[in-house]
């Protein structure tokens, strides 16, 4: 473990389900404060890759290290405590709790009560949803639920934030706000975003990694990658048209 170890380093990650290979040997390094976008067609293995990073899936083979420390095989809760926050593809929230209760659950996990309370308030402010504090999460609209989930993640102030399609189901205004927010988040944490919305990607991205069929197809600065013919072929060709 050296001080120079990158925040996240994944090497040759492979995930097989029976005969199906969902991720076939992906390596990726993300540094402190980096904002990385993952793109790729449906079934390219992005969500599976995320789940291996967060500990929801145990890779068939390969290594994941957080600041040089291997996290393969650790339970998801342990990885979360090591500073990895996750927003899943479909909002994963506590339908039966209120917004405030939900966020408190997040802050309570890591912080003493006084601080937890303050951090929870701040998170709601940041998401601009303090007015929803007493509302039951299960009764909110889809976009609002996304924000609640984000608030829970943000409230924990993780070092690495994994966002799986955070803009899905949001209105235009909400998407814009979200973009600003992600950029802001990236000042204090490293962020990896999976997204389909290309305008959104262009707006926030610095480095883009393209997945295809469980492999990394290309990686580099956003503009460069999007100009890549192979990338246009497998992905943009359809979506960006």
């Amino acid at each position, binding site marked *: 473990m050296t001080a120079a170890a990158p925040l996240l380093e994944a090497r040759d990650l492979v995930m097989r389900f029976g005969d199906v290979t969902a991720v076939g040997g992906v390596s990726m390094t993300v540094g402190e404060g980096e904002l990385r976008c993952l793109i790729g067609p449906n079934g390219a293995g992005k969500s599976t890759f995320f789940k291996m990073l*967060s500990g*929801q899936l145990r890779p068939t083979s390969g290594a994941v290290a957080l600041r040089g420390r291997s996290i393969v095989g650790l*339970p*998801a*809760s*342990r990885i*979360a*405590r090591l500073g990895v*926050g*996750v927003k*899943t593809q479909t909002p*994963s*929230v*506590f*339908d*039966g*709790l*209120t917004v*405030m*209760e*939900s966020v*408190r*659950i*997040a802050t*309570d*996990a*890591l912080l003493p*009560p006084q601080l937890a309370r303050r951090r929870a308030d701040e998170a709601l402010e940041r998401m601009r949803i*303090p007015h*929803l*504090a*007493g*509302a*039951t999460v299960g009764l909110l609209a889809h976009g609002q639920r996304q924000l609640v*989930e984000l608030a*829970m993640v943000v409230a*924990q102030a993780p070092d690495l934030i994994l966002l799986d399609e955070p803009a899905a189901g949001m209105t235009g205004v909400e998407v814009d706000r979200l973009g600003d927010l992600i950029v802001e988040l990236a000042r204090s944490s490293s962020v990896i975003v999976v997204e389909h919305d290309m305008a959104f990607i262009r707006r926030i991205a610095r480095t883009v990694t393209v997945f295809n069929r469980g492999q990394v197809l290309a990686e580099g600065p956003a503009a460069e990658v999007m100009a890549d013919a192979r990338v246009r072929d497998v992905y943009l060709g359809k979506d960006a048209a």
Partner: protein
Amino acid sequence: MTVSLRSALGFAAIAAAAFYALVVVPQGGDLTTMINGSIYASYAILALSLALIWGYGGVLSFGQAAFFGLAGYVYAVAGLNLGDTALAALIAVASAAAFAALLGYFMFWGRVSDVYLGVITLTVSLILYRFINQTAGEEWTIGAAPLGGFNGIPSTPIMTALGKPDETLMPEQIYALSVGALVVCYLICRLVIATRFGRAVVAIRENPVRAELLGYDTRFYKLGIFTLGGAIAGVGGVAFANSVFVSPTMFNLQTNGQVIIWVIVGGLGTLAGPVIGCFAMLSLSTWLGSLDGGGWTDPNLVMGVVLTFCVVALRKGLLPTALGLGERLFAVARERMGAPKLGEPRAAEDRP
């Protein structure tokens, strides 16, 4: 109705019920009521334990009576051997908790889920039942305590006054003790739910994946609530052992089924509901059996119809349905008087 008003009313109702049970009933001097009352209270503690782990922890144990019966037997055996009933009771509750912890570790660390968890708990309870049921032979004697097989242990010792091992408690005192234990267990459940641990348990019931991703080791929390449930069921078992005596029926299929029925009839997700459901169903069953020269009906028939009806028509159970009805009436009344409508999302200050 706001949450605070609702819980205040709830507390008032609980306090009133406890007052009635502990002060008014003994004044009546009716021993039958008190002895039935102590049996019902022991079962109600069992119902409470399932209400906690199922309603709040989302862990459906089909074999909750395993802990109830185990504690009863440990109490009887320890009591007969040690002579000190208070110590025996402690050992009994601790064994129920330890057994729950062991079983919980086996299940939660194996990531056994839902229905399978139900099957395993039920099966464990039935194993205990089958085992105890075949201990009629005299080779099954632990120290001074014959396990007694099907008959159980009719000589189950009754609690003695603290520090006075010769002064066996009277039925009235056992009654007070059982009801007292029920109230204390209820308060413990209430308190636990309000702690950080309790909130995490509820969150895990709501969405285990999310809780896990927020850093909660769900296995640990489930184990915690399951163990607490086992301990509370154990308290019920000790109370039952004092009210009747221990026998294998404590963990047979019917007892396990009944607990679930009480919780469902009373209302899943509440604590008081299952206790009410337990008292209601037991009274019904006792009453049906004392109908002289019956034959026009059968206790099973009535219980079955009630349960089916509760599940199909009364989805939430007695207490929540009654509260909902009360709220609606209340709302209508307030609206007529021109008060603002209830049920708006409320500000965060209202929350604890």
